[in-house]
């Protein structure tokens, strides 16, 4: 179980780190005034600073929140059940290419689902990449990645 307070803190740390990184990175471009006008790093530096300060405020503010469950165990399971296969799918694209990865992803997600027959899962796994091909590669001539696998097969 994850409390709202924990989420608030995690998000504030995330945004604060981003803000700090932006502010520090813009120092390379110079901040302040030069003969060419406002230097390139000034605006991002200020923006990074605002993000950092705002995140600090949100961090302090989060302590005032009542400790309240925001993501229950069941929620977490549902979240991960969507997110992990999705991340695996995206990670597989450079290797398998978009089409094979799509098919594997659909097959994987649907096979592990109770109440979906193997045959139906297989049909969806085949139909989805075929539709993608028809819409993108064929109708709109947008080439999707074929991956390392495609390279090996010489596509």
């Amino acid at each position, binding site marked *: 179980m994850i409390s709202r307070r924990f989420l608030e803190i995690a*998000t504030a740390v995330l945004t604060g780190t981003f803000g700090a990184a932006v502010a520090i990175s813009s120092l390379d471009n110079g901040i302040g005034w030069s003969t060419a006008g406002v230097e390139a790093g000034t605006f991002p530096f200020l923006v990074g600073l*605002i993000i950092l300060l705002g995140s600090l405020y949100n961090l302090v503010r989060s302590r005032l929140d009542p400790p309240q469950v925001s993501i229950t165990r069941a929620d977490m399971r549902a979240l991960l059940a969507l997110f992990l296969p999705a991340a695996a799918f995206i990670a597989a694209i450079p290797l398998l290419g978009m089409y094979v990865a799509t098919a594997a992803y659909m097959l994987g997600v649907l096979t592990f689902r109770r109440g979906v027959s193997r045959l139906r899962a297989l049909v969806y796994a085949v139909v989805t990449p075929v539709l993608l091909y028809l819409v993108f590669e064929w109708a709109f001539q947008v080439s999707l990645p074929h991956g390392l696998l495609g390279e090996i097969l010489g596509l």
Partner: protein
Amino acid sequence: MENVEALMHGFGIAVTVPHLALMVVGVLLGILVGVLPGLGAPNGVSLLLPLTFGMQPVSAIILLSSMYWGALFGGSVTSILFNIPGEPSSVATTFDGYPMARDGRPTTALATAFGSAAFGALVGVVLITFLAAWVAKAALAFGPPEFFAVYFLAFASFIGMGGFPPIKTLVSLSIGFAIAAIGIDTVSGAVRLTMGVDELVKGVNFIVAVMGLFGIGELLIATEESFQLKSVSSRVDWREVVRTVATLPRHGVAMLRSAAIGCWMGITPGGPTAASFMSYAIAKRLSRRSQAFGRGEPEGIVAPETADHAAGTSALLPMLSLGIPGSATAAVMMGGLMIWGLNPGPMLFIEQKDFVWGLIASMYVGNIVAVVLVLATVPIFAALMRVPFYLIAPLILIICTVGAYSVSNSYLDVLLMLGFGVVGYLFKKLSYPLAPLVLATVIGDKAEDAFRQSMLMSKGSLGIFVSNGLVGSLMAAGLVLLLLPLWLQFRRLQVPSEEQR
């Protein structure tokens, strides 16, 4: 009268067979993304954007804007029939729309919603017709300081009137600015904020951000909402539609008030979501039947729907005439304009007359097409809601992945999208607003350029922002909006009982 003439010319462009067909396609796709949880107008329009690169700009904008109208209507369908808002801006419609539908009057609820929505949209379009060219003409005299002041006012109004926690809004907005700054600086040519990743030199495309924040983020949120589809009948009785629309004038005062709220929030840009909530709250407070709100009171549908559509439509006014989009979807469309090689802003009304007036005319026709199509297709789209989520979720994910990839054939974009998805989930969960982030991603560069050009003009003195009445009052208005939340908080501290109510 000049406007009417130009509008008639616009109708000549918009009302052709290919453009009407595009409207139908756009509206249907829009209803689809509006109905599906996890897909909304901003990422629906983003998905379609790469497919419009080969089109004439006017055809492309007709397709995209029609999709926007369709999505606005589609969001209300699921709000009313399933108590699931398809779009954030139709949350307020569930308050009275669903109870009315549950009580056996789904057609009445839908017709009330669509009738008032159409009215709101009409007011928005009329406003654009008569005001946009005038605003653009006034804006022709603007220099960098005035433009910066207008940007400042727009961003400040998010913080002051967006209805989200002000500091969270500020953080979200600033993250958008930082993302916009990644890549090559348009003024000096220096490379900024790439943090050692060479591929970031080209910058982060707003479409990638939209796909992640709205698409993936919303999907993750949707896993938590239990989809108990206590659906009500989705059959539409056309006689009941006519009867309901005929009774709408009874709510004339509420409609006019809601349209005014919507237009104001659309232009400034508070956005449709804030507009619909504000309009609902005000209607409830002012109505003599305020006790009936929440239990299927027609005015509880009229108020948010009118404001939602008035805001959604009028959000295109500042986009066209000033180059400042009034909502997240308008921001995406403006990104499209720039990709098609048009320069959003006052010059558009001079250089691209056909485009501007073709679009405005298409808004009249497109909304009529949308009302008719949405009523005719309610049963079909309602049936779509019965497709199980475990099937829809991976499909939407695949679509977003392909969409993010096809922006510039980059795998990095896909990874960024996934990252934005996690951020989108956290932000939604913790009520950080997403629209300011997208807006700042699209126009952050322009706001920064305006600021730096002003500074060059004044040789580094901030005094340029109060150097004349116009720029001074715009900046002052922005400051008032910025400080508004602080003042409200201060008052609340003084009157603690008010918060408990």
